[in-house]
């Protein structure tokens, strides 16, 4: 009887390592999961510019965005662009001195969607009341040629004021700038 119990016990122990081995083997069979890239993704060449100018873009007529949200987006993006340290100078919209920069890149944030949430609703329910703002980032040359485009979305889901969505958006814009320049 004792022998039988010992055999059952040992057999249980042999199942566990074999299962672990099976899982490791299956993981090894999928190289992409272990960080080994499959076919190399198409690398887009990085842009170079000594200065960037952030232009303001009006939203479409059917999209109403509060002015404080637009201003906060603009100012947060200016701050985050400066923090990237990719450019010698970050020019504001309308700055006349930007005209003398030969390799100036113009950044436009074109609003595409906006959803005004509620901080109270977020904090009370935790699942509703998110604020989100979606913009299309467009890098153009001085003569208006579009160099790169991408859509990003800034959100505040749980805690924080509505304007925090603009901070989140600005961080994402800065990330796009970092991967583009």
């Amino acid at each position, binding site marked *: 009887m004792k022998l039988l119990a010992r055999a059952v016990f040992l057999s249980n122990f042999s199942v566990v390592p074999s299962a672990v081995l099976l899982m490791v083997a299956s993981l090894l069979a999928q190289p992409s999961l272990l960080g080994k890239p499959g076919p190399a993704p198409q690398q887009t060449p990085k842009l170079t510019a000594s200065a960037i100018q952030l232009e*303001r873009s009006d939203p479409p007529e059917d999209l109403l965005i*509060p002015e404080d949200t637009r*201003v*906060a987006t*603009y100012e947060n993006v200016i701050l985050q662009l400066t923090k990237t340290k990719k450019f010698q100078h970050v020019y504001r919209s*309308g700055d006349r001195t930007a005209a003398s920069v030969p390799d100036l890149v113009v950044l436009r944030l074109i609003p595409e969607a906006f959803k005004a949430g509620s*901080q109270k609703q977020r904090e009370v329910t935790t699942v509703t009341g998110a604020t989100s703002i979606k913009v299309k980032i467009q890098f153009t040359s001085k003569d208006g040629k579009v160099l790169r485009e991408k859509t990003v979305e800034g959100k505040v889901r749980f805690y924080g004021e*509505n304007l925090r969505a603009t901070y989140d958006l600005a961080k994402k814009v800065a990330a796009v700038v970092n991967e583009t320049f």
Partner: protein
Amino acid sequence: MRTRSAQGNRGVPSKQRKIVRRSLQLAAIVLVFVATAGSAFSQQLATPQGSQSTSIPHVKCVIGLENIKANAKGTLSLLPNGLEFATGKNKVDISTASMQDIFTGQESRQDVSGPAGTVAKAGIPYGGGRIVSLFSHNVEVLTVEYVDSNGGFHGTIFVLSPGKATVLKNQLVAQGAKVTNHVQPPAQEQKP
């Protein structure tokens, strides 16, 4: 004899109690009067009727002023030729001539907020933090758009107590600040 002396002893404390009670009532009345008069006097000091300089303390500058940190608190003053925001260390002026547009809006803010408030709310058992989140107060937001000497666009956002942003905006418009007609987003639940 014992009875008399006992009655006499009882009478003295009751008189003292009456005196103490009356003096406390008087003190409370005086305290309420002083507090009311003080707040009224300070309001008169903050916004003198008909004068050109209005000074509003405890204003939050959310973003947009150079050399002023985001969410800094300070005093917003109306000067004869523009606005001035001053914190303990720094002071920034925006001239009326440089202003391109001014917006005001109503919002609400949580009574308990910020990282410390959030931690405190999370620490209340049985979801009590959600009840605390129901308490909020109204604020008014003043957004000023202006240009610098090179023509670069700037925007700054101030959070004031209700009613004060509209007063400031009207005074700035009277000084000659530009204001366009705005299309307001549809009225919704007061968003914090």
